């Protein structure tokens, strides 16, 4: 499998418009943190240790492909350009931390990009599975399988009291971080988010806007994940997150219905204006693109906007980021230039979609 494919294609498996409650839950992610005995953690280890860990982990995974029923591609991070690293970060396939790593590290990616195993990130091993929609158990089973397989061959650092020993004490215990990415436009429009965030936090979950803490969420997309990893079983962590997610889904649906019932034409006008901006604008900042994407997505979910495919919106959400835009443009871009290219990209994608006679070519392969 050519590495180029992971870099050029903005479509990735978790964006598929499928899975339960896919209109509200965009994706589900499970992450397991693991370390090997006999090597210091990446924060303090030597290049020699890094190399040994990298070889040991990748050998096991590449050996077990048939058992796992997926094929993995080994991508050496040091061998990638800064731009290509950024592209993998924008697709959520590696973390910013691994992208900036100065020692030997790698990512092993399954062909469908649903599984990524990062080696020598903050921990020796980070198993990550991303599924579209709300699929906590499915993603957990996948990650758990890979964990079982690695554990058979590699000596894990584990302690009966502290569980899986991780570099950061916020991961000790199960090493499990489960999260769901939710699109919550109606709760945001009706000013219910602040109160909801307070409640969710009190229930031991963490909520953050998609690009960091404290700031308003771009495109009304929020990530909700478990905070506690010690003293709670994997099952309990997943059950609690599932039940909180379901409650938020219900609240979002109620808010959507309320919006639709009170002033439907005002809502419809707003959503269509946003579709107009995305389709015809010549300059698009990320802020505006995020807001309009959220509106159009809501319009599709409510049945007000027809003829636009949600998966195109998902693709644009990834593609509008700086790394992808620069690959698309084929050169490095200043922020104002990016706004111009971003607008061009949206025009092309949305018009391609409107024009059903297109030949199905992929205009974004650079």
């Amino acid at each position, binding site marked *: 499998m050519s590495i180029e494919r992971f870099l050029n294609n903005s479509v990735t498996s978790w964006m598929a418009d499928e899975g339960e409650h896919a209109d509200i839950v965009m994706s589900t992610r499970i992450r397991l943190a693991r370390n090997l005995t006999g090597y210091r953690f990446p924060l303090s280890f030597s290049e020699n240790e890094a190399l040994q860990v990298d070889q040991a982990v990748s050998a096991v995974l590449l050996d077990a492909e048939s058992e796992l029923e997926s094929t993995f591609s080994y991508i050496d991070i040091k061998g990638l350009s800064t731009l290509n690293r950024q592209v993998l970060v924008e697709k959520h396939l590696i973390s*910013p931390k691994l992208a900036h790593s100065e020692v030997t590290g790698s990512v092993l990616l399954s062909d469908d990009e649903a599984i990524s195993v990062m080696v020598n990130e903050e921990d020796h091993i980070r198993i990550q599975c991303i599924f579209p929609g709300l699929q906590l158990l499915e993603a957990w089973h996948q990650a758990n399988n890979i964990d079982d397989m690695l554990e058979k061959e590699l000596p894990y650092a*584990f302690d009966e009291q502290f569980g899986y*020993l991780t570099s950061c004490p*916020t991961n000790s215990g199960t090493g499990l971080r489960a999260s769901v990415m939710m699109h919550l436009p109606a709760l945001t429009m009706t000013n219910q988010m602040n109160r909801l965030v307070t409640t969710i936090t009190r229930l031991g979950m963490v909520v953050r806007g998609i690009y960091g803490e404290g700031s308003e969420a771009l495109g009304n997309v929020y990530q909700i994940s478990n905070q506690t990893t010690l003293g709670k079983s994997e099952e309990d962590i997943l059950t609690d997150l599932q039940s909180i997610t379901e409650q938020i889904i219900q609240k979002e649906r109620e808010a959507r219905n309320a919006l639709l019932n009170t002033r439907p034409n005002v809502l419809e006008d707003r959503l269509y204006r946003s579709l107009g901006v995305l389709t015809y604008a010549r300059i698009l900042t990320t802020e505006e693109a995020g807001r309009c994407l959220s509106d159009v997505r809501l319009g599709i979910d409510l049945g007000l906007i027809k003829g636009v495919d949600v998966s195109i919106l998902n693709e644009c959400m990834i593609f509008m980021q700086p790394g992808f835009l620069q690959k698309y443009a084929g050169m490095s871009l200043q922020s104002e230039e990016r706004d111009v290219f971003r607008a061009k990209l949206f025009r092309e994608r949305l018009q391609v979609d409107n024009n059903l006679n297109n030949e199905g070519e992929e205009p974004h392969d650079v």
Partner: protein
Amino acid sequence: MICENCKQRPAKVTVTQIQDGTHVQRHYCEKCAQNFHPFHLDFQQDPLSLHQLLSNWFGAPESAQVQQKQQLQPKIPPCSSCGWTFRQFLNEGKFGCAHCYESFREQLPSVFKKLHNGNVKHVGKAPGKFGHKLQLKKQIEAIRTSMQAAIGIENFEEAAKLRDEARELEKQLQSGGEPPDVN
């Protein structure tokens, strides 16, 4: 100075860009600066800033008190495997190696209590051999309970049999938890 992008909020972030070999400085507000890296789901970030939490914990009002306490306590030796001190662990908010957990075992429950909602002991998945060990321990405990019961009703023959069973399992436990027929 006002943000170059939105021209509304005060500029707080200076971004240096390299353009055709020359450095260009741009001044943005925090909000706009963040937007230049949109949709960066920084999923590796810790859910709560441990550093912040720990520094609050050892924060200004308490620090004198804590320092005093630490002077009274015997000094915690650094980790013998990576050389990190407990203080270093608190400052970084990270462990240097897996052995740090052993080195700071006594201090850790109070840290974990703060981070994990009062919890200090792992519940959940364990690697195979540890899982087997835990099972053995439970089995041994159960046998001992039956043994006490047997003694209680003066069935010493049964008690002796159970004692031998428990001893056999203990031997297994000490030899690393592998049952004798495997390897």
